[in-house]
């Protein structure tokens, strides 16, 4: 396999980064067709997954960001769906003096859009309803283990990119992103991907639910935020149930 492996290594280097000498490799044709297609396909894939980031940066800046990202993190997954999995971290890691730096908030916007991509085709699961919880009886509610539906993500942001996302979604000029930490819950209700910026106390307990906390745990965590946490915990529980964002741990619900 030595000859084939060496040939393919040369081809890959020439096509993806222009490194190497094609002499003796090709008998005819144009390697540039492959080089163009490689870059164009990856750019198209990230455009599809990050439309708000592209809109916020502009097409040229976004293309430069993608070029830098792909050079730093060549695609490793068989599916283009996973191409952007490290984009947010890549953007976070850029030095502001880097030519492809897109601004300190760009990583957070990529993070929010990435969460939406992952939730879009995440595992199917029936959401719990008020009736499901009521059927358990009052005594069981305190020990009720909670969990977000599997197709969900709790996304911690340092910048107000949720507001940038919403403005762009509405076709409005995006406000400047400001440094203002917040937590966004992304989930899928039926086939629709939704996200909502959580209230501060809700944001505090969201990671606990992601870790499998019980309703009593949620009440305990809310003590820091409310004098009487039980009514607030109940209100949040109803909010989450009505949003179809919650499931109950098995075996209570399949």
């Amino acid at each position, binding site marked *: *396999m030595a*000859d*084939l*492996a060496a*040939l*393919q*290594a040369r*081809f*890959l280097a020439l*096509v*993806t980064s222009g490194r190497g000498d094609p002499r*003796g*490799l*090709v*008998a*005819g*044709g*144009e*390697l540039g*067709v*492959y080089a*163009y*297609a*490689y870059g164009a*396909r*990856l750019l198209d*894939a990230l455009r599809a997954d990050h439309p708000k980031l592209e809109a916020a940066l502009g097409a040229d800046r976004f293309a430069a960001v993608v070029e830098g990202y792909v050079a730093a993190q*060549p*695609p*490793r*997954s*068989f*599916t*283009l*769906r996973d*191409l952007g999995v490290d984009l947010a971290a890549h953007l976070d890691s850029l030095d502001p003096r880097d030519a492809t730096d897109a601004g300190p908030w760009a990583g957070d916007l990529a993070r929010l859009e990435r969460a939406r991509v992952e939730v*879009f*085709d*995440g*595992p*199917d*699961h029936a959401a719990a309803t008020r009736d499901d919880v009521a059927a358990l009886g009052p005594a069981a509610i305190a020990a009720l283990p909670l969990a977000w539906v*599997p*197709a969900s993500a709790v996304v911690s942001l340092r910048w107000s990119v949720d507001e940038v996302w919403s403005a762009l979604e509405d076709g409005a000029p995006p406000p400047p992103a400001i440094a203002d930490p917040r937590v966004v819950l992304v989930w*899928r209700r039926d*086939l629709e991907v939704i996200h909502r910026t959580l209230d501060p106390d809700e944001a505090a307990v969201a990671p606990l639910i992601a870790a499998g906390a019980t309703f009593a745990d949620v009440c305990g965590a809310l003590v820091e935020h409310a004098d009487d946490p039980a009514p607030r915990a109940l209100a949040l529980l109803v909010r989450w149930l009505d949003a179809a964002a919650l499931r109950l741990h098995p075996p209570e619900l399949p």
Partner: protein
Amino acid sequence: MSLAPRLGFGLGLRPPHYADALAGAPAVDWWEVISENFLVAGGNPRRVLREVRARWPVVLHGVSLSIGSAEPIDRGYLDRLAALVDEVEPALVSDHLCWTALGGHQSHDLWPLPYTEEALRLVVAKVGQVQDRLRRRILLENPSSYVTFAASTLGEAEFLAEVARRADCGILLDVNNVFVSATNHGWDARAYLAAIPVERVAQLHLAGHSRRDRWLVDTHDHAVCPEVWTLYAEACARFPGVATMIERDDHLPPLAELIAELDVARATAAEVRGG
């Protein structure tokens, strides 16, 4: 399985057409879907696939098997594909005579092989592994190509035919790819068809292409061109009754327009059949 089930005339199912495909009764005998788009946990893609499969035969067409890479098959990918095959029970499973990854670097493109005895042995061995895992024959599709390699000692059609014979797999003959590669490299497209063993061809592809400088590129963004329709008629004469579908991935027209184009394929095949 039958090597060439008589499926009729199909289309590639793409997300913008999901709703129209499921809402009505489009005149499509079967659908081809890109396997990788459905190797996901759930959500709308899997729902659509379930509903489509309940009403039509489905063919799984992959782009990431990388059968020609000088390294082992990605077992993780193959396991996921096998699970999808078990669930969907597709009429056919196909991928491309190409390589798409090396050393973990994925190209997301269909890169050409040098047509050498070394590459032939590798592809034959890997097709055998895939067919053993999937417990069925697969089809390999001839790619469009934009370079030829100095190392090649065989013609592409000869190489593909020999892979099919030695590995006991089928061939998905892409008529547009034959035309594109033949034009780019100065091959004789009719001689290419003549070199493909009739009994191995289980599916035909049609598609449009575009021009980039002096090269034809398999972009799937136009209607099938007259020259490819002419070559398709010759393919119908050589491979009668073989399932045909049209691929369209960019500049997607309404579904009705693609169905009208599929009617041209039906009429062409019928005309050839009627003599």
